[in-house]
């Protein structure tokens, strides 16, 4: 693997900037790894031992910045050199801007700058998050609580206080929101419109918002509630508060609610709140059966149906979106070897893992998961697939001490190659999530690994089918069209959404079974 060491003599950057520069360079096509460090003797020795060229390191001194770059052969030294200069100059202008703004260091300091602010976004480690959120609520601020690992008792305490003060606590572990067109956390650049989404599921909200966008509809608000909001202990406080706010929101004419099935006592409270909403609503409790419901209250069972129903209720005619092509399933199935019989979903979003189970169960398949719909199908070891498997790689078991797979693809790449080596794997399904907060080029980062996985299977006389759905829009920084092109280039079958991807995977398997003598 070619490696370069690029020197920038006497250049000092703080550690956070160095890390951001490393990430920017590592996201470039063809770059496998980028590390920025000072040119000390110990680092020089370490880089020499790792195979970096001696002539490039001879001149480095402890006060020089060294960019150690590993590439795949498709990119040259000059390109990387230019990219490093661009990234450094971008950092310099950002630093200047940041200095002018000078970030406040406490909630009180931030409040003193913006007395009109009405929302605090909190992202600190779990044990400290509740105290910060409490301060924000006492100061009369709504709270977007990105932090996870907040104890349930603290969540209940925070939400009860918010309820008394007519404020909203979004979270804990709230991944996404769009409030008055301002994206918070992971969010996509979707069209403005009359549909609001309230959800316990971050990726579920993102997927529905993007599908609504593709169908020609638009979003007024997206409110995350945190995964435990509909539990017996919390009682759906945030979901109900959000519905009350949306009832009064003139920009909203239709509301979508997405969550896992609530506790029975909470289901009754949510039903009552939906009836008091006074606006048409779509309800998706993933894992529960859907149905027609009433004219103004549609109950659906997957993300695609939720988006379509919402656009319909908003008075729009869903735009024609290319559906998955069953001929693709036939073509793929015909190329599978004997023994290739299982589906493997490797998802960065928990909702996608749940939805795949719903769709595959509907197709008559028993599916194992680390986020199993039924206890009997829980994986003993999340790191190993068993028969048909839908795995949530964003689960704590995978992210403790490592970045989330939406940010760092390394964990999913490992797992993809593991599945490729399994002779029973027929189809791998992937979600590619775009938007603020996500990886700068997720498809580009995965593409070499997908090609490698297919090559591993091909060397063993097998055809590995890879199906992907991109959650994002053409306005996202990563650009959906560009991401899809990267995937197509490595022979990935693209589906128009997560539901279609799961359906297409199941169809490949049916066709495989049909193709057997």
């Amino acid at each position, binding site marked *: 693997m070619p490696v370069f060491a690029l020197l920038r003599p006497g250049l*000092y*950057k*703080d*550690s*956070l*900037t*160095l*890390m951001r520069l*490393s990430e920017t360079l590592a996201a470039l096509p063809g770059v496998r*790894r980028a*590390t*920025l*460090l*000072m040119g*000390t*003797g*110990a*680092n020089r020795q*370490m*880089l020499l*031992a*790792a195979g970096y060229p001696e002539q490039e390191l001879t001149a480095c001194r*402890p*006060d020089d910045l060294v960019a*150690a770059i590993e590439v795949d052969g498709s990119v040259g030294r000059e390109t990387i050199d230019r990219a490093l200069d661009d990234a450094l100059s971008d950092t310099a202008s950002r*630093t200047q801007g*940041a*200095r002018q703004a*000078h970030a406040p*260091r406490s909630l009180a300091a931030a409040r003193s700058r913006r007395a009109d602010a009405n929302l605090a976004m909190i992202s*600190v*480690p*779990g*044990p*400290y998050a509740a105290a910060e959120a409490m301060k924000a609520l006492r100061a009369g601020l709504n709270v977007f609580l990105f932090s996870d*690992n907040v104890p349930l008792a603290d969540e209940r305490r925070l939400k009860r206080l918010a309820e008394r003060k007519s404020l909203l606590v979004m979270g804990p572990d709230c991944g996404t929101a769009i409030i008055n067109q301002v994206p918070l956390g992971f969010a996509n650049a979707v069209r403005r419109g009359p549909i609001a989404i309230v959800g316990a599921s971050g990726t579920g909200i993102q997927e529905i918002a993007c599908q609504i966008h593709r169908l020609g509809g638009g979003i007024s608000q997206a409110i995350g509630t945190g995964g435990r909001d509909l539990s017996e202990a919390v009682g759906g406080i945030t979901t109900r508060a959000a519905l009350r706010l949306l009832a009064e929101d003139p920009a909203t004419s239709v509301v979508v609610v997405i969550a896992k099935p609530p506790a029975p006592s909470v289901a009754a409270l949510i039903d009552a709140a939906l009836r008091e909403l006074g606006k048409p609503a779509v309800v998706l409790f993933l894992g529960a059966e859907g149905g027609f419901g009433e004219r103004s209250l549609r109950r659906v069972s997957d993300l695609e149906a939720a988006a379509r129903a919402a656009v319909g209720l908003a008075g729009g005619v869903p735009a024609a979106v290319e559906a998955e092509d069953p001929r693709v399933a036939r073509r793929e199935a015909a190329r599978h070897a004997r023994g290739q019989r299982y589906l493997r979903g490797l998802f960065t979003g928990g909702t996608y893992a749940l939805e795949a189970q719903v769709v595959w169960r509907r197709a008559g398949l028993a599916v194992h998961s680390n986020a199993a719909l039924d206890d009997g199908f829980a994986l003993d070891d999340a790191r190993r697939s068993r028969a048909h498997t839908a795995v949530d790689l964003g689960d704590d078991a995978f*992210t*403790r*001490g*490592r970045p989330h797979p939406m940010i760092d693809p390394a964990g999913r790449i490992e797992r993809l190659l593991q599945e490729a080596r399994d002779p029973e794997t027929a189809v791998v399904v992937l979600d590619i999530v775009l938007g603020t907060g996500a990886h700068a080029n997720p498809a580009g980062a995965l593409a070499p690994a997908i090609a490698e996985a297919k090559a591993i299977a091909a060397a063993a006389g097998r055809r590995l089918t890879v199906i992907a759905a991109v959650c994002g829009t053409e306005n996202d920084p990563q650009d959906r069209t560009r991401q899809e092109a990267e995937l197509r280039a490595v022979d990935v079958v693209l589906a128009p959404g997560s539901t279609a991807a799961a359906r297409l995977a199941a169809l490949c398997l049916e066709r495989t079974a049909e193709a057997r003598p």
Partner: protein
Amino acid sequence: MGEPSGVVAVGCKAWGALRASNGQVSAFAEVGDAWYLEAGSEIVWAMHGGTLPHPRALVIAEPLPANWPGGYLAPGDAPVARPAFPARLAGGRRFLEARAQALTSALAQSEAPRGMGRLLRGEEPDFPLAEARGGAAALSRAVRAGEPDAARKAAIALIGLGPGLTPAGDDYVCGTLLAAHLLAAADPATNAFLAAMRAAIAGAAAKRTSRISAALLADAAEGLSFEALHALCNALASGDDAAGRVAAHRLAGIGNSSGWDMLAGLLGVLAGLPGD
């Protein structure tokens, strides 16, 4: 080119350096929110706003002018801060180690360590630090045992190693030096060990790492470091677990992984590294 306005607060090391240079400084780097300045042969850093993070820092009332090459920057009547450090430990060494072990367990369960901090969970740090695991454990063991030769050898191998403006290995060594000072407060008989380390670190750092990092290492050898690291040492010494968690959290927020690297160095000595 305008002159900077007044100094609001100054750390004891920065105060000494400015006094020795009669307030004459030259700017040599702007890094993030800070300006690094040379005052005589010493390095100090100036920040606009916030609280003093380190004895080598000073807080100024207004940002320095763009591309300011240097000039006059006197501390005036600004209050001089010297971070507190326990002079002696009433509870003794065992008490200190027990508090450090409790904190290590709590951090391992609730936080996602970066850099050398992953050692606190018994995990291997990412590239390019994987090779440092054995050396870090050797340093922690040697400081715990009060073996100056082994400690000096292990510390020198770590200095200058790893990513960051202050290489991760340097930050780890800083943490171990503060731990050595705490142990000396518990047992004055280890003062000789500390003196041997101080001389060895100051000499090696000047040759093996960046100027900024060498200055911070020399301070740590004297028992002076980031305010959050001092707050953590005080909390451990007094047995205030809640204050210890808050200070550890603040420390972990320094740099990209510098805070975690120092935390691992400190707790690696006081509590031992898991699996070692």
